[in-house]
């Protein structure tokens, strides 16, 4: 039953993504824009670019995720789909988790795959790339999960707009600090394992807790 519901949700989200593929590309294009503008603004000095690269790449991915956050539950709230989620014979946190995983797979995962290219653009030394990829792979799911809580909290409002960003940013700061920090540490020849492990711990905590919190917020918003 839970797998059937998850499958139905995944098929629906992928179909909708394909129908609106122009919209779906927006976060990725936005991240590309940020990186390109940074690269141009910092000029043709490879050393400066390489120093700023971890922070810029992390920021680009984070902001792109933030851009897509408001759509996580809003569409489903406006057409009454959330009512049917609440009536489904499966736990609401499970549906929230599946929806959030789809959100991550459609916004963060393409960026993750494009990261080697973007890193090249920012002159990131090749030996730091694995650390950057690892930090993004561990950090972006945490961003999506924390973002789901914020999106669920604001889904009852007609236009959440900047409020989503204001609520999400303080939650995102630790992830950004450890994520970009791990690459910066590797750049200085330090061991990035500590920061990566902390990101992993954050993911292990957010994975069960964030869907519960988001589901509670959705339940409140629908009443």
């Amino acid at each position: 039953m839970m797998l059937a519901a998850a499958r139905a949700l995944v098929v629906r989200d992928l179909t909708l993504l394909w129908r609106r593929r122009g919209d779906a590309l927006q976060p990725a294009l936005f991240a590309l824009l940020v990186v390109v503008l940074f690269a141009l603004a910092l000029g043709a000095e490879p050393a400066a670019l390489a120093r700023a690269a971890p922070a810029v790449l992390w920021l680009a991915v984070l902001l792109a995720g933030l851009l897509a956050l408001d759509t996580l539950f809003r569409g489903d709230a406006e057409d009454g789909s959330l009512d049917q989620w609440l009536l489904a014979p499966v736990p609401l946190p499970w549906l929230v988790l599946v929806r959030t995983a789809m959100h991550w797979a459609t916004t963060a995962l393409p960026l993750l795959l494009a990261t080697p290219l973007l890193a090249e653009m920012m002159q990131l030394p090749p030996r730091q790339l694995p650390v950057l990829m690892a930090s993004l792979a561990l950090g972006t799911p945490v961003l999506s999960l924390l973002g789901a809580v914020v999106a669920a909290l604001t889904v009852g409002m007609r236009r959440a707009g900047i409020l989503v960003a204001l609520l999400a940013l303080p939650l995102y700061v630790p992830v950004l600090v450890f994520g970009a920090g791990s690459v910066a540490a590797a750049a200085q020849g330090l061991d990035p394992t500590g920061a990566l492990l902390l990101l992993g711990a954050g993911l292990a905590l957010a994975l069960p807790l964030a869907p519960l919190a988001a589901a509670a917020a959705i339940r409140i918003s629908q009443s």
Partner: protein
Amino acid sequence: MPDAPSASAPLLDVRGLGFARDDLPLFGPLDFSVEAGEALLVQGGNGAGKTTLLRVLAGLLDGGRGEVRLRGVPAAAAARAGQVAYLGHLPGLKADLGAVENLEYLCGLLGRREGVEIDRALAIVGLAGYEDAPARNLSAGQRRRLALARLWLSPARLWLLDEPYANLDLPGIELVNRMVRAHLDDGGGALVTTHGAYAAPPVRTRLLQLERAA
């Protein structure tokens, strides 16, 4: 065994159900029950609390007082999910998905009644030939018919229909009545809200009149 579901117990039994919004009582306390094969017609003017009553019964709205039993088993709000089918003002359809895609998704989410096919349900509600039409291209009445097809596919025995006649033409109203009758003949139950202007389904019906709280 007071807590085992029993065939003789009413599908839905409500005792002392009341709901207050911001400490202002909206309705209740209400006592009523719906037996299998029976429809309860909930009547009342605008703002009398018909939709709220249905949302409380569906478990979408928490904070109601009183006790709700399904087949004799006390069911808290969250436990009622999966046992009732709810047709509200919002049809819960994705505008970019076709009719069949919408129904496939909703069946995956909510479950599907044994032996009912999606094509058959579409034909019953008069949407044969619209299988691939995106919901955004359907008229309001056709979208409501699509929502009725979802209801027809639902495995739940208790239907909660909020203004099911809205947006429907005369054959559509006849369709709702026919569907309710078939559902009741099958041993199901239904709660139907209406503000009173439409004909009631020609079935064994009880009436619950909601008055606006003074």
